[in-house]
């Protein structure tokens, strides 16, 4: 097994008074694609947001590249090399496509290599170059998702967190986007995805975690998990 890049140990996360994540531990090895699967409200997005620094765990630790990162603000997590494609894409609607990308490499370190990063993003998503001077709000859903991914790539992350990137998109578009994720991963960038679609995740990940009611119920490599166990863990049977 490769080195672990992200190690989450026994964290609990509260949303105000609501105990959203219970005693969750997970490990993401360098250069892998790892997915967290679960139904709506299973706590997977909360877990992802906690890793990104948007939420804070009440206990437990999050280590990234051997360094403890819980308690960091999101902008500090970005500087450490964690980037996130947020749920619902969250474009900057009044900025153009190009400006969205530029803002993506706001950190001083990334800013120096802006032109190179933009070129790479355009290679990955040629449609973004065609649309670079349009306001991002005029893009289609799929294009917006591509822009969100491109924007997250701009700061040259070691780990990208993808929060439900297939939500609300047509199957063909989803397939296309997952192919890009694979391409991104092939460049050595580690990916942690949150997804509701079990089959899609099993097909595209090296390892999956299944969450239900705020707890991780099952983990393993897709080939080694039985359909029966996955179904039980997913629905909490």
């Amino acid at each position: 097994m490769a080195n672990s890049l992200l190690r989450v140990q026994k964290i609990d996360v509260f949303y105000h008074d609501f105990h959203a994540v219970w005693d969750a531990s997970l490990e993401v090895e360098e250069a892998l694609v790892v997915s967290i699967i679960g139904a709506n409200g299973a706590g997977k997005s909360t877990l992802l947001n906690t890793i990104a620094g948007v939420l804070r765990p009440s206990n437990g630790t999050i280590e990234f590249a051997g360094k403890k990162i819980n308690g960091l603000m999101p902008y500090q997590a970005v500087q450490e090399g964690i980037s996130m494609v947020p749920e619902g894409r969250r474009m900057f609607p009044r900025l153009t496509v190009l400006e969205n990308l530029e803002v993506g490499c706001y950190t001083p370190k990334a800013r120096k290599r802006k032109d190179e990063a933009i070129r790479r993003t355009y290679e990955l998503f040629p449609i973004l170059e065609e649309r670079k001077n349009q306001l991002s709000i005029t893009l289609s859903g799929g294009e917006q998702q591509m822009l969100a991914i491109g924007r997250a790539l701009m700061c040259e992350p070691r780990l990208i967190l993808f929060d439900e990137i297939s939500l609300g998109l047509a199957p063909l578009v989803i397939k296309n986007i997952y192919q890009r994720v694979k391409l991104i991963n092939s460049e050595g960038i580690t990916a942690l995805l949150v997804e509701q679609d079990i089959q899609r995740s099993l097909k595209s990940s090296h390892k999956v975690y299944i969450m239900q009611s705020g707890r991780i119920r099952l983990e393993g490599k897709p080939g080694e998990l039985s359909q029966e166990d996955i179904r039980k863990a997913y629905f909490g049977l």
Partner: protein
Amino acid sequence: MLSFLSELKVPITNGLLLGGLYGIIGIGMSMIFGIVRLVNLAHGDLIILASYLSLVTMTLFPVSPLLTLIVVIPAMCVIGFIVQYYLLNRVLGKGMNPPLLVAFGLSIIVQNLLLLIFTPDARTLLTSISVKTLPIGSFLNIPVVYLVDFIGSIVTIALLSRFFNRTYLGKAIRAASDDEGAAQLMGINTKSIYAIAMGLAMGTAAIAGVLVGMTFTFYPHTGPEYLIMAFGVVIVGGLGSLLGTFLGGLILGLAQILGAHFLGPGFQLLSGYLILLIVLTFKPTGLFAKG
């Protein structure tokens, strides 16, 4: 008809020029409203604070008020940054009321500090251009100070819009104003971005303060008058557009002077507010609102 139009030349010119001044009074308020989503109730008082800062600088160094901007702009930027970073940022995200109350408290503190230090006497930033007029054609005389106000306003807004469109910081500020959470995920420290935005807004308040001080007399309690003016400009112009704010200023200025022209000087303020009411009724987002 022709004589009617030529009769209107003077009030229209004056209205537009006054509107330019209103534009710069409103621009800082509009920025903070749009970026930080904060109604800065102290905006007018901070403008007057800038007027007094200019006055102090003029007594220390005998220069023209416009030259005091070299001192007043940086001073106001620093004040704005500190006020936002250490005071207003602490109450953001805690509902509507706390930031309003902090800004209101700040307004009271500034007013009374000014009263304490400078006494309630009327002041003005005296300059040779305050009394000069510029003849245009044979029957139109423009007060030079109005022209300076107008040009100052245009230059400021042009520079600001360049800053927002061309620089990294400007784009980051716009991104934070679109979606604070997403901006943080891009590595942007939105709290310090807000402080920088307030610093910039206070930079424009510094310019507004000096221009206001050159154009009108001011007292420690004049701030709220300009706050209301700034409110008007923001409402008429709409959020999120620098040009809209400027045009909002022009409309308000025109409405006031034309109202005074047709209905008598007593109706100057009222006619401005009538326009405000009409805009609020038919286009509550403002005439030039973006997005």
